[in-house]
């Protein structure tokens, strides 16, 4: 992975692409620094323990150069659920003011990064634009090496409570490397809903990176909804810092893509901080969905709760790799992890790896993981009541996914997610009747 012949390997082509990007001297130097570091480290490979389940060979033939935004149909967002509040649209990693909401909710500010990037920034901000402190430096470096745009979203202390901020990522082909910085002031609260779409089902690579900071007592509900097509590779990297008494929730719906991976790191830095993470990994057809989380309990009395459900169908593959780290001195930390996988077809495979790394004694940590087929007894119960075998299986599969879907607090989004899961099941109308 060290000696890279430029132009032939993904990394070599990446160097060529980075050299052609606009943005002036400062932006160029920043990208070059990231690229040099990435060239030295190499992209993650199958020998990396944390990447053993993700097949990055797909990157080999992919066009990594940042796409020049192609025009998209005006109704590109029509498939999304009804949205209140602010909508911010990125097309191939670039902010699109024309498609975004003009009038922002109270207390919210949206700063596009493209203009800011050309100048030298204060060190604290500069650090947030580099590799930052994600789980895996390399995806962040990939983003930083090709960074042209992004946005800084900031909610002031007096912002409208629980306001909805919808961020839509559209990819039309080639690479997209948007960077999101989100800051919630102390006491602020918001819902951030990210959608990932590939209109036209093009071959794409997206490596969106987000840095999120929650002030004291702030609350953020963060949804990540992957609806990309069957030729999309998506490597999301999210890093979150949570101050005292603040709460961060992440709800992941992996419903699309060829290879969709999320690396999520949450640091509970203040006393009483808490986080709740959940995800539905719908691995059907030949889709691969991987989730890796690292939750760090840095401060005392912090709590974390993770619930992940994987459904493996056809030749789908998926993995959950979740690590909870309790630092020295993080007494009274309370952590739970639950990972359940449902295998429906012989060709599907699901892996899970719930890990605990505990360096303090006064803690309560547990995890549970199960993998298997549908429960025969439950199936029998439904069959005995006259249900068709296919319908019974569909109903149980839906109920399995509902564990996670039920955590969605936005009604429109929840119905949308339910429909997406139903869409892949037989007897959808009947199940709709059941849940109505």
């Amino acid at each position, binding site marked *: 992975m060290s000696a890279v012949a430029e132009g032939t390997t993904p990394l070599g082509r990446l160097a060529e692409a980075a050299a052609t990007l606009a943005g002036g001297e400062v932006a160029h130097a920043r990208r070059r620094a990231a690229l040099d570091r990435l060239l030295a480290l190499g992209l993650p490979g199958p020998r990396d323990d944390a990447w053993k389940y993700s097949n990055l060979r797909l990157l080999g033939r992919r066009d990594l150069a940042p796409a020049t935004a192609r025009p998209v149909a005006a109704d590109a967002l029509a498939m999304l659920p009804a949205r209140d509040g602010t909508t911010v649209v990125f097309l191939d990693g670039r902010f699109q003011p024309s498609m975004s909401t003009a009038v922002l909710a109270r207390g919210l500010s949206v700063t596009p990064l493209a203009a800011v990037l050309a100048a030298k920034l204060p060190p604290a901000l500069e650090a947030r634009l580099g590799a930052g402190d994600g789980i895996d430096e390399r995806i962040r470096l990939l983003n930083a090496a090709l960074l042209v745009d992004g946005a800084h979203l900031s909610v002031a202390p007096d912002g409208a409570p629980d306001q909805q901020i919808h961020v839509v990522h559209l990819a039309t082909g080639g690479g997209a490397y948007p960077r999101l910085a989100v800051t919630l002031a102390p006491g602020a609260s918001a819902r951030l809903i990210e959608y990932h779409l590939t209109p036209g089902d093009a071959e794409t690579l997206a490596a969106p990176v987000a840095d999120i900071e929650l002030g004291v007592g702030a609350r953020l509900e963060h949804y990540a909804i992957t609806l990309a097509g069957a030729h999309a590779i998506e490597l999301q990297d999210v890093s979150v810092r949570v101050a005292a008494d603040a709460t961060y929730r992440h709800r992941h719906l992996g419903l699309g893509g060829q290879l969709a991976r999320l690396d999520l790191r949450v640091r509970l830095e203040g006393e009483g901080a808490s986080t709740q993470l959940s995800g539905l990994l719908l691995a059907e057809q030949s889709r691969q969905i991987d989730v890796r989380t690292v939750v760090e309990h840095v401060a005392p009395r912090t709590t974390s709760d993770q619930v992940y459900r994987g459904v493996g169908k056809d030749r789908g593959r998926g993995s959950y790799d979740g690590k909870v780290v309790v630092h020295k001195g993080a007494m009274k930390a309370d952590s739970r992890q639950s990972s359940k996988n449902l295998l429906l077809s012989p060709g599907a495979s699901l892996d899970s790896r719930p*890990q605990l790394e505990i360096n303090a004694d006064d803690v309560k940590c547990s995890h549970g993981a199960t993998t298997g087929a549908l429960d025969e007894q439950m199936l029998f119960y439904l069959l005995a009541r006259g249900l068709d075998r296919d319908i019974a299986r569909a109903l149980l599969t839906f109920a399995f996914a509902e564990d996670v879907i039920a955590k969605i607090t936005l009604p429109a989004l929840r119905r949308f997610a339910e429909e997406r899961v139903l869409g892949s099941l037989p007897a959808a109308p009947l199940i709709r009747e059941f849940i109505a």
Partner: protein
Amino acid sequence: MATKPQDLDSLVGQQYRHGFVTDIDSDTVPPGLNEDVIRLISRKKGEPEFLLNWRLVAYRHWLTMREPHWAHVRYAPIDYQAISYYSAPKANTDGPKSLADVDPKLLATYEKLGVPLHERARLAGVAVDAVFDSVSVATTFKERLGEAGVIFCPFSDAVREHPALLEQYLGSVVPTTDNFYAALNSAVFTDGSFVYIPKGVRCPMELSTYFRINAAKTGQFERTLIIADEGSHVSYLEGCSAPMRDENQLHAAVVELIALRDANIKYSTVQNWYPGDENGVGGIFNFVTKRGECRGANSRISWTQVETGSAITWKYPSCVLTGENSVGEFYSVAVANNYQQADTGTKMIHIGRNTKSTIVSKGISAGHAQNSYRGLVKVLPSAEGARNYTQCDSLLMSEHCGAHTFPYVEVKNPTATVEHEATTSRIGEDQLFYCLQRGLSQEDAVNMIVSGFCKTVFKELPMEFAVEAQNLLAVSLEGAVG
């Protein structure tokens, strides 16, 4: 939790009971490793050609390998050229004919360890193939086993007497290329135990070996091979203790178990090697590869281990479940105190239909110790109806220690059912209060709670081991709770 620091100091400051060096002349090869040393070992042991070649292949492969560093342990680099690879007690050219011929100093060593060879052997009905450094010096109950057709002998005897069996089975579960330490062991192993249970035989007694590390600076490279032929049954006990020493000693053993159709192997270990002093100086590096293969249908392999010793433990007794309906089990208690580091667990590889595995792991960390469970449950597409249950619990007894859990669950068959559960906590103050309030001392209360925590594993141990394990646990953890 009001134990005073000075009480703790006196309790934690306990000396390692089994620390002593028996002064016997050793026939030791100078430190260093190259092909000549391997040829010398092979010649000294009078090995056939195939075994020498096998060693050399392993050595050449080892040279291409890098030391693994993925385990959650830290240690200073090991200089493999500073180790002496062969050491045998002298005056052993003819081999002792009976217990009376055994060097009395040697017997005294076992005496101190609480293993009175002759007494224990007779009373407990246990045949002891005592391994002292690298050459077995005493074997009892050979005749009784011989009547049943069971072969239980030092590895070097097996090389001479049963080369065909060896050629067929050696390295068939742990190939020479398996991992860094297994390759090293394959190249330089000096002795160990060999067991063969013929078809349909239920071994008339529990087989047991005591491993000891004695001469300074000699790494031990034991090799154990157990073959249970169709329909046979064997229970094997392995117990260890080593003298006190300031320098780290490397121990890289390989254990291979092969269970053919309807065979049953139970392998129990109590490991109590020198863990280093309370400052983390010295102690054994225990880098062991243990693996069993349930090759035939309806076979069963069960690993039970109680790990209280060693400065570093790196050990994953595993089961490859190839035969239909075969069963793999792993029961483990790992205790780490002071600066001990343990990275231990198991691998269950489900290949055959309806294979089942159970994993119960109990980790206890105290002092500044790091204790990790690392396990893999892998269900291959061919393993229709496979079933696994895993439970791993950790108990934390100080604010400076660490307890980690790294389970890997990989399932490629939709009819499989795999369950994993893990908890980590410290001894409940309410439990402790309850015991203290009923008049128990803090030490007794902790012992009782810890025993309860480990009970599911201890009940899998053969009786005499269970008692030893219980005592060992109490000694290892004395003064660990504050």
